[in-house]
């Protein structure tokens, strides 16, 4: 069962100190966005990277971030966004 649904406001974890293989990119750390869709559940790449089976599968989301939120000096369109696939353990509910 996935914790988040499309439309939910979420925030990426701030703590990126874990070792190993991570698929959440640095530039969205501690940033708030909105769940655009639930992609399904997939094996955990952080474990697959070390020849583990990656189970249980983790829910994967596409999260939409406003460029203005990601880059303080963003000079493109006001509505420009980036959408990033992020695994559930990297997301917390965001305050409204």
């Amino acid at each position, binding site marked *: 069962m996935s914790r988040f649904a499309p439309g939910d406001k979420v925030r990426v974890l701030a703590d990126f100190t874990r070792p190993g293989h991570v*698929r*959440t*990119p640095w*530039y969205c750390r501690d940033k708030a966005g909105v769940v655009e869709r639930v*992609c*399904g559940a*997939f094996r955990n*790449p952080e474990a697959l990277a070390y020849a583990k089976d990656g189970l249980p599968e983790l829910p*994967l989301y*596409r999260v939409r971030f406003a460029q203005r939120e*990601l*880059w303080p000096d963003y*000079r*493109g*369109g006001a*509505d*420009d*966004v*980036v*959408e*990033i*696939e*992020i*695994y559930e353990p990297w997301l917390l509910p965001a305050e409204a």
Partner: protein
Amino acid sequence: MHDDHTDGAHDHAHDHGARDFQPDLEDTHPFTEAQFLETALRELLIEKGVLTADELRGAIEFMDGRGAHLGAGVVARAWTDPGFKARLLADGTEAVELYGIPIRPTHLVVVENTPAVHNMIVCTLCSCYPRNLLGRPPLWYKSREYRSRAVREPRAVLEEFGTKIPADVEIRVHDSTADMRYLVLPMRPAGSERLSEAELAELVTRDAMVGVTVPRGPARATAE
């Protein structure tokens, strides 16, 4: 074996077969360490029964057969068949499989350009790309410059590709960080109403399906 690629790439996939382990004489530069390593690795794996030369040859031929022409056919179908387009946007993999291109286990997400939204695809962490449909990604897609800047300044990147998107159009950059792979469904160019599906497909380039360009319109009719 000659494959058609709408971006004009010419390939010549041939393998010298199981009996001939020599580095390929068509490789044009003097052999680098990495080339020696590839040869040694391949021979060792074949000797140990982990792989066969046939399997490798088959995989090369499979990837050589993938290319922009496949994606272009899907786009042209979506432009002419609203039901197909709806299925494509709802479930890209399922729609493309039904269209007749086996791409599983790829999870394909198709994102649509509209007058309000322009989509662009990148993989900042490595080079994830819808290979089973479009083939191997271009060099620039894998470059530091593209991977770094596409999420940060997409409009400047688009301008480097000669693409100007109006400021009031939303640019949506998709960072292919996990299990999804992306295809941009460009807008059908104006003036293309009378073209056949095959002619429409010729307007669709790989770069348009990655989202760094838009398809050109049809050539102007000589008699207007």
